[in-house]
C-alpha cells in the first residue's frame, strides 16, 4: 500500500483517513467516538486513536467492508456493513464483507454483548459510508468541472446531467480527495434508505449451508496438535498428583502435564470479565478423539478446596434462613413499605426462586494458540477480544501488542464467550507443550465449567388498597456474594420495576458466599428478575380482582408526574396495548384448558410485552400454543429479517429455560453434563412466535436480548389462568400441573 495518505478535517470528535491502494482504488478508515458508548464500554479504548471502520473500494466497483465486531449469531457481520453501504449508496450486490481481526489500533467497540452494536454504531458507521460517498462525488465533480452539490449518486455511480462515473472508475481519484469531517457530512433521510430496512440474508449463509470452515473449532494450523484439559470437578479445586506416565502411554497421546497458572508469570487482570487461574491436566496429541478417550485413564488426586461444601440444597436452606432475618442491606427505600403493608386493605406474600443456568452454546469452547516469533497468535471464538487480550497479557506475562487474536465466527455466545478462560488454558498448554495446539472442550466440560447464570431467591410482599391499587412492594432478595459485592450477574438494579410506580417500595438484599463461577447470560439479571416481578404482579392483579393486562396498564399510568423511572412508561404501554390487540387478549374464545398469560420487561433499551397461550391437560401435560411479541426498539429496524429471527430465537430461548432447564450442584460439583440432563428446546416444543413492532421515534437499539425476559412469566401466568396453580420456582417441569 503506498504513498498518498491524507487525513481530513481533523476535529476533536473524530476524523477520516484515506490511503490510495497500490493496484488502484481507495481505502478509507475512520475513527470516531462511538454513539452511546458509556460506562465500561467507553473506558476500554482510546477514542482519539482508534480506527473503527474500513472500506476498500477497488476499480472493479466492489466495496469491501470490514465487519469489525465478533459474530455470535446476532447478525452483526451483516448489519454493520449494511449501515456503511447505505450511505455509500452502493448496491448490496457490489458489497463484500470481510471479518476483521481484533485490532485496538484500528477499531473500537469490537465486542459482542449487551445488545450494544446498534446503539453504538448506528450513526458512526453511516457517517463512514457518507464520507466515502462525499469523496467519490467530489472526485467526479472535479473531473466534470462542476460543483459536488450538483451531482447525485445512485447504485454505485455518481451522476451529473447525462454523465455518470461508477465508483470503481472514481476510486483512485477519490483517494486524492481530502476526507470531509464525519461530524458534518450529511446523512440520508430515512425515506431514501435502500439497504437499511431491507431483509438482507446473512453474509455467511452460502458458507454455512455448504459446510465451509468458519468457526473456531474448524481452525487448523500447520504443525498443530490437539489438546484436552481435565479440571477438578469441584469448582476451584487443584491437582495434587496424577498418573501422567500412564496417560502418556495411551494411543495418540504425545504429552501430558499439569497446568497450574498460579505458577505462571503475572496474574489475571482486573477486567469486568475476569476468569479464575486455570488448574488441571493437559493431554496433548495427534487426534482429539484419542486424547479425549485417554482422559478415562487419568487417576488424579485433587485438592478440592472450600467449594466442596457447597450444594444447591444447602443454598436453598440458607436462603430460607436468611429470609427470616433482617436483610443485610437496603438497595432502595421509597416511602414506608412496612407501614403501608401494615395498613393495606389486602396483602400478599410469596417466595420465588430460580435456578442456576448454563449457556450451552452448541460449539464447545475452543481456542487455537500458537507461540511464534516472540508473540502469541490465537484463533478464538470470543465476544470480548479487547478484555481477553489485556488480561491474557497480564496472566501470561507478555506484552499485549505481542498477542494477535483472529476473530472466528462463533457457534453461539449467549454471554458464555464474554469469559476467556479457555483462551488462557490454550495459551498455557501451547506454551508448555512447545507446539501450536487446538484446545477443544467436550460437551461435559462445557456444561460443568460454565460461568453460570446465578440462581436467586425473592421473598415478596405486596399491598393493595380498597380499590385494588398497588400501594406497597417489598422484596427481600437473597442472592450470592460477599460483603457489599454481589457475585457477577447476581445483582439487582435498585430501580427495577415496579420502583417508581408504587409509592412505598423496599428492595433489600442478603447474600451467600459462592465458590462457583457466575456470569452474564443473554439478558443478564433481566432473564431471572422478570420471572419474579411479572409473576408477582400477576398474583396482585388476581388478588385485586382485575384483568392482569389492564392491571399492568393502570400500574404504568400510576407514576406521579416527574417521577424518574427506569424506562418510559408510555413506550411500555404502547407495546402492551399492541400485544393485547394482536393476541386477541380477553376476546379469544379459548377452549377449556387453554389460556393466555402476559408479561412485559424493559432491558437493553428495548421495550417488550408478550403474551403466551398455553394448554394444560387435566393430567398436567403442558403445551405452548403460540407466543405474541410486541417490541419497541426505536424508529428503524436495520435488517428486519434478522430482527425477527433474533426476537423469535430469544422468545424460544426464554421458553426453553422456563420449561426444563436448571443447573444444580452437589459437593461443589455441577450435576448436569450434557443435553440429556440440561435440556435445550427442540423443534417439537417450539410454538409459532408472532412478532409485531411499535415504530416509535427513538434511536434504534439492539435486539439480541430484550425479547427473552417476558416469556417465562407470561407462560407461568398462562398456566395459572388454566390451573389456578402459581409457579413460583423454575423450571416448570418440576411442578405437578394437573387440575380439576
Amino acid at each position, binding site marked *: 500500500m503506498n504513498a498518498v495518505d491524507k487525513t481530513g478535517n481533523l476535529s476533536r470528535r473524530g476524523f477520516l483517513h484515506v490511503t490510495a491502494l497500490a493496484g488502484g482504488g481507495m481505502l478509507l478508515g475512520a475513527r470516531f467516538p462511538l454513539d452511546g458508548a458509556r460506562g465500561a464500554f467507553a473506558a476500554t479504548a482510546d477514542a482519539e486513536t482508534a480506527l473503527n471502520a474500513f472500506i476498500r473500494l477497488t476499480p472493479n466497483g466492489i466495496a469491501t467492508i470490514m465487519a469489525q465486531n465478533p459474530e455470535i449469531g446476532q447478525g452483526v457481520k451483516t448489519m454493520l456493513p449494511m449501515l456503511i453501504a447505505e450511505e455509500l449508496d452502493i448496491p448490496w450486490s457490489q458489497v463484500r464483507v470481510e471479518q476483521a481481526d481484533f485490532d485496538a489500533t484500528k477499531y473500537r467497540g469490537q465486542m459482542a454483548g449487551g445488545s450494544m452494536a446498534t446503539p453504538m454504531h448506528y450513526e458512526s458507521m453511516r457517517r463512514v459510508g457518507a464520507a466515502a460517498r462525499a469523496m467519490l462525488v467530489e472526485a467526479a465533480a472535479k473531473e466534470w468541472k462542476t460543483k459536488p452539490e450538483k451531482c447525485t449518486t445512485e447504485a454505485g455511480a455518481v451522476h451529473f446531467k447525462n454523465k455518470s462515473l461508477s465508483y470503481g472508475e472514481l476510486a483512485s481519484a477519490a483517494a486524492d480527495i481530502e476526507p470531509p469531517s464525519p461530524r458534518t457530512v450529511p446523512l440520508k433521510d430515512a425515506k431514501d434508505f435502500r439497504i437499511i430496512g431491507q*431483509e438482507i440474508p446473512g453474509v455467511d449463509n452460502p458458507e*454455512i449451508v455448504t459446510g465451509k470452515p468458519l468457526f473456531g473449532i474448524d481452525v487448523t494450523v500447520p504443525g498443530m496438535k490437539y489438546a484436552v484439559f481435565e479440571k477438578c470437578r469441584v469448582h476451584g479445586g487443584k491437582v495434587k498428583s496424577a498418573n501422567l506416565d500412564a496417560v502418556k502411554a495411551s494411543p495418540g497421546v504425545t504429552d501430558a502435564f499439569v497446568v497450574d497458572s498460579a505458577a505462571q508469570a503475572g496474574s489475571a487482570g482486573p477486567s469486568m470479565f475476569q476468569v479464575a487461574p486455570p488448574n488441571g491436566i493437559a493431554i496433548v496429541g495427534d487426534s482429539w478423539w484419542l486424547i479425549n478417550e485417554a482422559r478415562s485413564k487419568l487417576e488424579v488426586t485433587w485438592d478440592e478446596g472450600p467449594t466442596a461444601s457447597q450444594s444447591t440444597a444447602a443454598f436453598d436452606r440458607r436462603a430460607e434462613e436468611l429470609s427470616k432475618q433482617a436483610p443485610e442491606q437496603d438497595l432502595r427505600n421509597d416511602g414506608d413499605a412496612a407501614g403501608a403493608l401494615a395498613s393495606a386493605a389486602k396483602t400478599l406474600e410469596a417466595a420465588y426462586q430460580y435456578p442456576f443456568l448454563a449457556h450451552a452454546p452448541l460449539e464447545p469452547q475452543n481456542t487455537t494458540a500458537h507461540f511464534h516469533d516472540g508473540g502469541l497468535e490465537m484463533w478464538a471464538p470470543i465476544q470480548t477480544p479487547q478484555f481477553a487480550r489485556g488480561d491474557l497479557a497480564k496472566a501470561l506475562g507478555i506484552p499485549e501488542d505481542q498477542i494477535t487474536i483472529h476473530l472466528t465466527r462463533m457457534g453461539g455466545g449467549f454471554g458464555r464467550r464474554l469469559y476467556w478462560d479457555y483462551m488462557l488454558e490454550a495459551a498455557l498448554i501451547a506454551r508448555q507443550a512447545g507446539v501450536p495446539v487446538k484446545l477443544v472442550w467436550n460437551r461435559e466440560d462445557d456444561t460443568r465449567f460454565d460461568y453460570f447464570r446465578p440462581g436467586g431467591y425473592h421473598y415478596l410482599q405486596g399491598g393493595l388498597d380498597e380499590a385494588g391499587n398497588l400501594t406497597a412492594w417489598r422484596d427481600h432478595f437473597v442472592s450470592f456474594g460477599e460483603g457489599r459485592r454481589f457475585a457477577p450477574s447476581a445483582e439487582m438494579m435498585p430501580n427495577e420495576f415496579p420502583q417508581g410506580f408504587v409509592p412505598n417500595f423496599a428492595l433489600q438484599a442478603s447474600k451467600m458466599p459462592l465458590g462457583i463461577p457466575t456470569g452474564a447470560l443473554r439478558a443478564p439479571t433481566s432473564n431471572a428478575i422478570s420471572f419474579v416481578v411479572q409473576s408477582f404482579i400477576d398474583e396482585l392483579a388476581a388478588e385485586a380482582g382485575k384483568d392482569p393486562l389492564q392491571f399492568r396498564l393502570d400500574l404504568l399510568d400510576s407514576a406521579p408526574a416527574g417521577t424518574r423511572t427506569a424506562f418510559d412508561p408510555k413506550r411500555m404501554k404502547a407495546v402492551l396495548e399492541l400485544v393485547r390487540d394482536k393476541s386477541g387478549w380477553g376476546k379469544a374464545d379459548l377452549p377449556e384448558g387453554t389460556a393466555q398469560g402476559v408479561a412485559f420487561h424493559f432491558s437493553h433499551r428495548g421495550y417488550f410485552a408478550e403474551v403466551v397461550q398455553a394448554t394444560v391437560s387435566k393430567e398436567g401435560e403442558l403445551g405452548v400454543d403460540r407466543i405474541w411479541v410486541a417490541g419497541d426498539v426505536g424508529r428503524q429496524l436495520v435488517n428486519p429479517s434478522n430482527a*425477527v429471527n433474533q426476537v423469535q430465537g430469544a422468545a424460544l430461548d426464554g421458553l426453553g429455560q422456563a420449561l426444563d432447564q436448571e443447573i444444580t450442584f452437589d459437593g461443589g460439583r455441577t450435576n448436569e453434563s*450434557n*443435553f440429556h440432563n440440561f435440556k435445550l428446546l*427442540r423443534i417439537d416444543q417450539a410454538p409459532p412466535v408472532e412478532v409485531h413492532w411499535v415504530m416509535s421515534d427513538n434511536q434504534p437499539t439492539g435486539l439480541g436480548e430484550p425479547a427473552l425476559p417476558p416469556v417465562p412469566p407470561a407462560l407461568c401466568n398462562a398456566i395459572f389462568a388454566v390451573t389456578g396453580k402459581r409457579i413460583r420456582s423454575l423450571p416448570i417441569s418440576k411442578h405437578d400441573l394437573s387440575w380439576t
Partner: protein
Amino acid sequence: MAIAFTLNGKSTTVDAPPEMPLLWVLRDELDLKGTKFGCGRSFCGACTVHVDGEPERSCRMPVSRAEGKEVTTIEGLSEDGAHPVQLAWQEIDVPQCGYCQAGQIMSASALLASNPAPTDDDIDEAMSGNICRCATYSRIRTAIHRAADIAQAPSATSHETATGAGGSEA
C-alpha cells in the same frame, strides 16, 4: 486399520482405529469441517451425515461401520450448494450462529428424500433430534416446506415472504 467407504461420491480409504467415530475421521483425518461436534452422545444432531441415504449421528458411529457404505456430508450434499434445502435455507435466511445448520440440513434433506411433502408434524418428528441453540425452529419449518416446493418445481416463485418487515411472522 484401513477402512474403505465412499465419501461424497469418491472412494476413500482411511487408516484409523476402528472404534473412532466417523465424526472425528471426517473432521480431523479427512479435514472435512462441515460436520460439527456438539455433544458427542447423539443428543444434538450437529454431526448428522447420510449413510446409505439414511441420517446418522456420526459422533456415535464407529468408522468401522462405514466400511463399504456410501457416506454423504454437507460438503457433498450438492456440487455447488444448489440442493433445494440449501437454496431454501438461504432464501428463508434461517441461520443465526449457523453451527447446527449443517446437521439440520442433512436431517431435512433425508426427510425430503423419503417424504417429498412433509406436514409440520412430520417435520417436528423428523427434526426433533437436531437442536438449534439459537432456536431458529420457525424458519427451519418454513424452509423445509420451501425446499419441498423447490424440489417439485425448481422454477417455482418464492413463498409469501417469511420475514415480513415491520409485520409479523408466525
